[in-house]
């Protein structure tokens, strides 16, 4: 197990270094360069040269990669030239907002999606199953930013039930939750459909197994079998998909944070892109990649811990 965790951690570090290298190489392609773009029309050759050396743009690419990796490892993501503020503190100030949004969306999706899936699996091809199947496809194929705008239109603009903008910063817990409902719902909708379908398929699979028949033979009530025994096993494949889903949710949060004007990593990246403030973009994207990779590694580790076969498979494949 320790070996497995170490292997995961090493992979993660390698991927992050690779991601940094890619980010640095990509900035090479910015028309002009990051420094002159930042200075805009106020630029003079002297000020560009000064800023270039301050940003380390005059160094060769491999040195910049090494510097970036070394600094990032110490938690230093550079200084924002426009505001003069520390980039890392800017990024980490908004990351919790995005994480709260992402996790409440998942929680919401699971709370609604799992019971729907279980209920649908109870009578395959019954009325409820068919109805939810159609609704699920509809929810999955509606982009989150369309759902977000429609929610905003109905609940904020027309009905006035929820606040139009912001994340409820500096207000109490209730106010923050009030601000969270619509954005979380916008992200959760597609996942409700997805989770419902996955749970249904996976549960039907499990319910066909011999040990469920045994449980039936023992006379356990159907409800107990479904929720207590079958669901526990059926939920595993769904959890494993959530790892990849984190990337999807972070991507969606960009749009949802813009639509609901919430501070977060998505809106920070977008804002910096619009201002062509590439150092902040780099830092933001790096943190996103870190979150994505770290959450996936954590999920893999949990699975390996639950199921010894997974960690053995990894090392067998390695030695083969």
């Amino acid at each position: 197990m320790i070996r497995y965790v170490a292997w995961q951690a090493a992979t993660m570090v390698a991927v992050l270094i690779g991601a940094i290298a890619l980010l640095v190489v990509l900035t090479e392609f910015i028309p002009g360069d990051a420094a002159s773009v930042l200075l805009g029309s106020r630029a003079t050759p002297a000020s560009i040269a000064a800023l270039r050396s301050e940003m380390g743009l005059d160094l060769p690419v491999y040195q910049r990669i090494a510097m970036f990796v070394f600094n990032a490892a110490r938690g230093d993501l550079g200084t924002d030239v426009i505001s003069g503020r520390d980039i890392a503190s800017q990024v980490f100030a908004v990351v919790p907002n995005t994480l709260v949004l992402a996790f409440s969306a998942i929680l919401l999706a699971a709370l609604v999606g799992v019971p729907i899936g279980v209920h649908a699996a109870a009578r395959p091809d019954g009325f409820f199953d068919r109805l939810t199947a159609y609704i699920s496809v509809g929810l999955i194929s509606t982009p989150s930013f369309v759902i977000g705008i429609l929610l905003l239109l109905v609940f904020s603009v027309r009905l006035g039930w929820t606040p139009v903008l912001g994340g409820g910063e500096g207000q109490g817990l209730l106010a923050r939750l009030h601000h969270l409902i619509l954005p979380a719902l916008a992200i959760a909708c597609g996942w409700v459909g997805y989770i419902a379908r996955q749970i249904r398929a996976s549960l039907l699979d499990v319910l066909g197994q011999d040990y469920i028949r045994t449980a039936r033979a023992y006379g356990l009530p159907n409800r107990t079998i479904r929720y207590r025994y079958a669901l526990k096993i059926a939920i595993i494949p769904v959890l494993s998909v959530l790892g990849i889903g984190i990337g999807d949710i972070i991507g969606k949060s960009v749009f949802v944070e813009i639509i609901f004007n919430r501070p977060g990593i998505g809106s920070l990246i977008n804002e910096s892109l619009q201002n062509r403030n590439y150092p902040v973009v780099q830092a933001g994207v790096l943190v996103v990649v870190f979150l994505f990779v770290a959450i996936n590694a954590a999920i893999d580790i949990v699975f390996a811990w639950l199921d010894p076969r997974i960690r053995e498979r990894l090392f067998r494949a390695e030695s083969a």
Partner: protein
Amino acid sequence: MEVVAAVWRSPTGRVGLILAVLLVCGALLAPLLPLWPPNRIDVAARLSPPSAVHWLGTDHLGRDLLSRCLFGARVALGLSLTVTGLAMVVGTVIGVGMAYAPRWAERAGLVVFDLIGAYPTVILALALVAIFGPGVNNLLVLITLVFVPQFGRIARAQTMSLRHRPFLEAEITLGASPARILFHHVLPNVLGPVIVLASMNIPFVITLEAGLSFLGFGIRPPLASWGSTLYDGFIYLDQSAWPAVTAGVALSLATLAFTLLGESLQGYLDPLRRSRA
């Protein structure tokens, strides 16, 4: 034809097929239909609700929404079909090539795929388009780049699993040329899963284009795009809901059509399911 018949047999596939054909026809015929020109500005009629003159109403510049929606379909469908096709071809060639390449080259290819996969798709596409600039051509190349690894991985895995199957080894022993092995045995077996992935990819690309255009990094105005219409509609949401709703519905119908189509195609092409049926 056999495929179309199979898709038509499933109720969801039928809905998807009808919607997709309508969308494609609307997109292809848009310049021929008696519509308002998509870029005709009529400030006097800005943000008007649906009427006999403008069937779906107008946007904040008084442009006809029905016309912009149909012309937006040209961009959305053209781009998503081209991107998916390109990514499919490039990814399959690279993937099959990797399976036959020397070990170091295969490893290197996998590292590059993993690296691209380490970025959430939307974030990567956003960063690339922001750096290289918006516009149809850039979007085409950059989004293709983002999706190539998925096709490459699946093509490689499929080829690897085929390589040591007894029927291929028998064929090699019988003296079949590498070209025959490749085109007669490997490619047909690789294409099934690749086509399934492609069909699931189309709605994703449609959403991605709309999303990038929504953020202002996609299609450049005044070219009509559902994403930019949606953004403008979002900005003027308190004055008129029609632009946002129209663009949102068009976009959702398109993704729904291709999702349904992809799913029924998957049911048909998945060799396991077919042999079971």
